[in-house]
């Protein structure tokens, strides 16, 4: 398995290089000059020339490209054109916000989507169970996250005043307390910071989680339908096992392989979903940062963010591939 993992990691290198090159050239093909984007209608000819020189944009493209790759190898993604922060530091501050959102929405999606998918498959074509659940899934699929997000904000934030309107909560504070060990010295303060994060997280996680739950439920329904049509399920039933035992002992375990594939896909979909969710809920995070960076032609920040997104997707797929062997002993790696 270690050899397999190493081989996969080696394959990941050209993939990453390809993604980085595509984003490098795509950003430069896009019309719009970074200096112009920064200065807008107050740009003067002299200021634009100074800006271009200071950012190194007056160098030949090939020189910029080699410089970018060489620095990236050393994990130096440069500094944000717009705000001046080192890109790695900036991404380091944004990443936890996106991570908690993806994890929380994964929990919502799994808690809602998987049971719905399983029940829907087990009660296939039941007008009272399957059809309403499939309609529910269709609703989730056709409801864009930004629309659901605004709806949740209006009801739960504006009208009922139960949740905050914007922000990501005191995640920086909670992480700082963990790093310094203060979390154990002042547990009440730490819990307050965690509570603040959860309070801010509830609506975005619901919005993103619900729309993802629809996809998860449809995929788990198909996975379950495939499993329950297998011979061993029929055998288990013919042996007189209860339906509960058939589902939990035989079907669910065998559903894990397709389910893991779903999780791999889920991460990519969820990362895309964070872009809109973070914008609607005005939360800090990688998604919103990436959109802003592209709009502002902030090359280093956009390049850094896409590199991180690519690395996450490669890593998750690798982990998923490795987990196949854990859930299904018949799978071996060579």
């Amino acid at each position: 398995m270690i050899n397999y993992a190493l081989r996969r990691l080696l394959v990941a290198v050209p993939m990453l290089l390809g993604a980085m090159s595509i984003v490098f050239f795509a950003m430069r093909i896009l019309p719009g000059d970074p200096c112009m984007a920064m200065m807008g209608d107050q740009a003067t000819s002299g200021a634009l020339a100074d800006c271009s020189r200071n950012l190194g944009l007056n160098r030949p493209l090939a020189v910029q490209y080699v410089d970018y790759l060489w620095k990236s190898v050393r994990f130096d993604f440069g500094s944000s054109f717009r705000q001046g922060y080192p890109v790695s530091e900036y991404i380091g501050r944004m990443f936890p916000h996106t991570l908690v959102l993806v994890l929380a929405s994964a929990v919502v999606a799994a808690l809602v989507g998987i049971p719905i998918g399983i029940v829907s498959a087990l009660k296939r074509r039941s007008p009272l169970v399957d059809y309403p659940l499939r309609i529910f899934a269709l609703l989730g699929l056709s409801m864009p996250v930004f629309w659901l997000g605004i709806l949740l904000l209006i009801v739960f934030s504006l009208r009922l005043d139960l949740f905050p309107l914007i922000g990501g909560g005191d995640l920086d504070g909670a992480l700082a307390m963990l790093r310094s060990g203060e979390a154990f010295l002042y547990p009440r303060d730490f819990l307050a910071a965690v509570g603040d994060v959860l309070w801010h997280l509830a609506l975005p996680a619901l919005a993103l989680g619900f729309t993802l739950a629809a996809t998860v439920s449809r995929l788990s329904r198909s996975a379950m339908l495939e499993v329950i049509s297998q011979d061993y399920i029929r055998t288990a039933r013919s042996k007189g096992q209860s339906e509960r035992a058939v589902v939990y002992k035989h079907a669910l375990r065998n559903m894990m392989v397709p389910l893991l594939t779903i999780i791999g896909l889920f991460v990519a979909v969820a990362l895309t979903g964070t872009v809109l969710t973070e914008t609607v809920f005005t939360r800090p995070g990688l998604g919103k940062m990436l959109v802003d960076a592209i709009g502002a032609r902030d090359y280093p920040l956009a390049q850094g963010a896409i590199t991180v997104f690519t690395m996450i997707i490669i890593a998750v797929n690798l982990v998923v591939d490795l987990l196949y062997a854990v859930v299904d002993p018949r799978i071996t790696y060579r």
Partner: protein
Amino acid sequence: MLRIVVAILVLVSTLIPHPADAQRRKILNIAAKEPDTLDPHSSTLGQSQAIARFMFRGLTRFAIKDGKVTTAEVEPDLAESWTLSPEGTIWTFKLRKGVQFHKGFGELTAEDVKFSFERQIKKAPGTRYGVNLDVIKSIEVVDPHTVQIALKSYDAIFLLRMVGYQQGYIVSKKAMEKMGDGFKWNPVGTGPFYFERHSPREKIVLKAFDKFPTGRPQIDEVHWFDVPEDATKLIGLEKGTFDLLYPEVVTCDFDDQVRKMGAVMDRRGPGSQERFYLDMTHKPFDDIRVRKAFMHAIDRNAIKETLYCRDLARVATSVVPAGYFGHVPMKFPEYNPELAKKLLAEAGYPNGFTIKPYFISKSFFYPKVLTLAQEQLKKVGINLELQVVEHAAYHDNIRKNLNPFVLYGGTRITDADPWLSLFFESTEIPDPATGNKGTNFAHYKGIDDLLAAGRVERDTKKRAAIYHEVQKRLERDLVCLPLQDVPSQWARNPKRVSTPFDPNYGEYSLHYSYNYPELLKILN
């Protein structure tokens, strides 16, 4: 399962921060976009200039006259007095004593003034306004509280350049030298609020400065939230999350919602002027009859009323906006589509013409104004096939002369000279061949002589007369159609925050913000 969910909800509800603490401190919550830097010399974005005014001051400031803030006159701020040498090229400023920089960086001295201007003149990386100080020949520190600035030639608007705005802000030399690039996000000035912290993509926290010369502000903290969407800002104002909104664009709908929730719009002149430049070197606008036809085809009142109903804007009366020195009302061809068609036919375009593609920014007022103009132009046979692009691409394209007429908006120092120089002097004609990215989109060369004369004229009346003549020539040559003067507008919850100035043009300002944020008060 249900028990677990209930237990989590109970735990979370006990941990939700209690608002009592926030209520004890007087916190002003502002919803705006996130600034790109807090170095006041390094950004041209509205939100960055707006927040700079909370932290920085200049040698002079816009004067308060009869309870109103005017951009026509200045009064002492960090400088307590000044003199001008008889030949008009040496300014000597006496600094106010005892003015302190934030965070213990000591007293303001002439060295800080010299440093603040020289870093811009020398075009330190990131600085944007050195061009506004090009008139300076040298700066000399006479003593810790006296600074002498020698100019290359007489400059009628030098005191306006020294206003706490863009290039005029004074930064701490010690802090800048200590922090280097870090100054961008750890600024040190002498303003009423000092920088406390920045959570990127979330908020910036400023705190009241105890040693501010005119006393500590009543507000303890300013929380500047990064909220890009105007819809979210409005929900926040209604909910009470925000006290002040800095909108991206104020439309009738926005104003209606603000009124409905009992909030007010604070309008500050002169604001920004939105206008069309007609490229007189680009066919078919090289023919003055076509330019005239274009102007006859545009119903400025309709555009203004549709976009900025009631008093959200004023129909522009000159290419030099009202409130700028040198302004005089001009006459423009009135709306008359029939006459427009006739002129087009005379110019050889009986069936009109098509501009394809016509690039327009997807941001701010640009798409809104342009789609209205598109409909009006269509009626006389001028068809635009619009291609909506991102704002940066739009700015790029118009400097490559890809649009034969250009929609543009902006604010500058409130004097005809810098304004006209940027938009009508021949040195500002954009040219991709030479890399000139200037803003003379009309490619006009007709007033260079008058601009040169205006710069050396010391008599105020004669100067004004020169700029009146400029406006006459522009009226004759029909190269620019100003549409509307749109004030800088913020929405305010009047039950939470008060300002001493009349919301309706009680202030003239260039900061995209309140001139005197230290005078804002939290009411409950």
